[in-house]
């Protein structure tokens, strides 16, 4: 039985379904474009393998013999078990028996038997899903552009009128443009790649909304995984619904006029070794201890080292970590794509109820998720989490200086609702640490530089503000 024409059907790739606002509309025509090796075939095979057990799927291919196709699908975790395969790839005899010809044009010789094969397969199998890899091959068998377009239109109509949803690929290039196929299709899915990342972009979807823009995807032994860029929530959470996050450090929360408001982005900035990560840990531990889940994403430090260091400072991290109230996630370099990481964070927020997200540090974030879009991803992540009422702490390292400092060399202070700076000061020739609040959007704060010590119990403020440093905002 054919799918209902108003029904959404899965592409077999959850992230892509999300971009398509729930999947493909049944009994329509979908073009997957991209250069060689971009993942077009894997996408199409995922679509076929997602066919419900009571329905049938047909692969029509021009390049690989069936056994090779099934073996290749298995290497990317796709089981083509019940999928019918019509391989129109040339046999080895074409080469060994010198079957090449030049007396007729290919369109005069190949087209008719090829169409007969397809018609026969469709009539016999009655598939509800068809993937053609690729329709570019048909272009070479057509005598001219007009014939090609007419033939493709006719073929797609033939298949969809028999109840199937058709996905077809195109090997787009400047030499062989596929504008005609884009016009014919109901939706166009583009797979692109450069040295840093692979992205999927939907540029057209008749009769349906879709998520615009480029979204990163990973192609590996598990097939294609698409990571939709975080969308702004449909409504902002009323920040007043949630109490501010406190640090638990004596004297600091009053300086912040009660703490960090829920749903704000806080930048903790300062030179190396001054105590930025420890300060962020204070907020995370205090939140977790008060029943509000926190997650710290460690881009530079290993979880073991972080735990040992926290223990050494007397911070109660083990119990909270074991209880799951405080999640520690080590992010190894190049393990995640930027959008993949934001998907992970979103999952922690939506599924695990995390209320405070700590990114330690921005430098590590940039290095680990090597991509030109990292800053954009950081912006989207922080702002979208904030709109969901989730608090974000970004740990940022600046150059070492005891005279003056930059809030950030990365031009990201605009992103922050709150800025807490940690600094080295040297009164009377001794080197000491100081903490100050530079910015707080939702409340007032105590200005001035507050000396503190880093030792047993973590950060301890020492008395009131002693002096004010000159500040230069990058």
């Amino acid at each position, binding site marked *: 039985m054919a799918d209902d024409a108003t029904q959404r059907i899965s592409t077999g790739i959850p992230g892509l379904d999300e971009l398509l606002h729930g999947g493909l509309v049944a009994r329509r025509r979908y073009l997957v474009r991209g250069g060689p090796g971009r993942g077009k075939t894997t996408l199409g095979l995922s679509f076929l393998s997602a066919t419900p057990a009571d329905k049938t799927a047909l692969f029509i291919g021009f390049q690989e013999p069936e056994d090779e196709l099934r073996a290749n699908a298995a290497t990317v975790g796709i089981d083509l078990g019940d999928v019918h395969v019509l391989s129109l790839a040339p046999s080895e005899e074409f080469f060994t028996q*010198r079957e090449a010809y030049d*007396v007729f044009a290919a369109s005069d010789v190949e087209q008719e038997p090829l169409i007969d094969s397809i018609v026969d397969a469709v009539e016999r199998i009655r598939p509800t899903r068809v993937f053609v890899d690729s329709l570019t091959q048909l272009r070479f068998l057509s005598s001219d552009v007009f014939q090609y377009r007419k033939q493709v239109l006719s073929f797609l109509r033939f298949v969809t009128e028999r109840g199937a949803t058709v996905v077809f690929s195109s090997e787009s290039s400047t030499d062989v443009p596929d504008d005609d196929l884009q016009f014919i299709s109901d939706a166009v899915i583009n797979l692109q790649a450069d040295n840093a990342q692979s992205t999927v972009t939907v540029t057209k979807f008749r009769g349906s909304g879709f998520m615009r823009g480029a979204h990163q995807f990973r192609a590996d032994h598990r097939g294609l995984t698409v990571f939709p860029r975080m969308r702004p929530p449909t409504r902002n959470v009323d920040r007043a619904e949630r109490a501010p996050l406190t640090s638990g450090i004596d004297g600091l929360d009053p300086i912040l006029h009660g703490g960090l408001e829920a749903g704000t982005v806080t930048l903790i900035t300062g030179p190396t070794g001054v105590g930025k990560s420890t300060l962020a840990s204070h907020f995370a531990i205090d939140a977790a201890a008060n029943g509000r889940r926190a997650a710290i994403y460690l881009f530079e430090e290993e979880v073991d080292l972080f735990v040992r260091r926290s223990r050494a400072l007397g911070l109660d991290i083990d119990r909270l970590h074991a209880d799951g109230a405080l999640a520690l996630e080590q992010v190894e370099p190049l393990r995640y794509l930027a959008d993949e990481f934001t998907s992970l964070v979103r999952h922690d927020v939506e599924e695990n109820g995390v209320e405070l997200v700590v990114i330690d540090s921005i430098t590590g974030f940039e290095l680990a998720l090597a991509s030109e879009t990292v800053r954009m991803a950081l912006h989207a992540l922080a702002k979208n989490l904030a709109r969901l009422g989730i608090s974000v702490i970004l740990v940022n390292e600046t150059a070492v200086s005891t005279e003056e400092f930059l809030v950030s060399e990365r031009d990201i202070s605009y992103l922050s609702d709150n800025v807490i700076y940690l600094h080295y000061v040297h009164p009377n020739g001794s080197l000491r640490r100081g903490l100050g609040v530079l910015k707080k959007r939702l409340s007032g704060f105590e200005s001035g530089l507050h000396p503190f010590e880093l030792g047993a119990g973590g950060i301890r403020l020492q008395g009131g503000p002693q002096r004010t440093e000159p500040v230069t905002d990058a």
Partner: protein
Amino acid sequence: MTDAPRGRVILVMKRPGNARVLDEAVAEVGMTGVGVSSERALRRALESEGRAHAALVDVSGFGSSVRELCRLLQAHEVPFAVLSTPEDAAAGSCTLEYGAASVLQKPVARSALLALVRSLDTR
């Protein structure tokens, strides 16, 4: 197809792929293709039982020996057409001296070639 002539067409050509597709094409109009790729094989085909009604000669790969092939066809009064590439144009045109009905440049339109073969057959 009911009025299609039924005859033998000798396909003189080196490339098996061309012989195959031409054989399939002439079969569609009710004729039988007989592929030969050497002078000896052509002699055998011409001397075998059953008159050859027409021949198609693809000059590619035969070099100057194509003249002898054409001379044999002419001697046996088998009407023939010649196929050549632009590179073989000289070899192709010399076959006119031996009575080639036409010299066509490859690739040819299937329908046009079949019409030509049928017209040769009715001569």
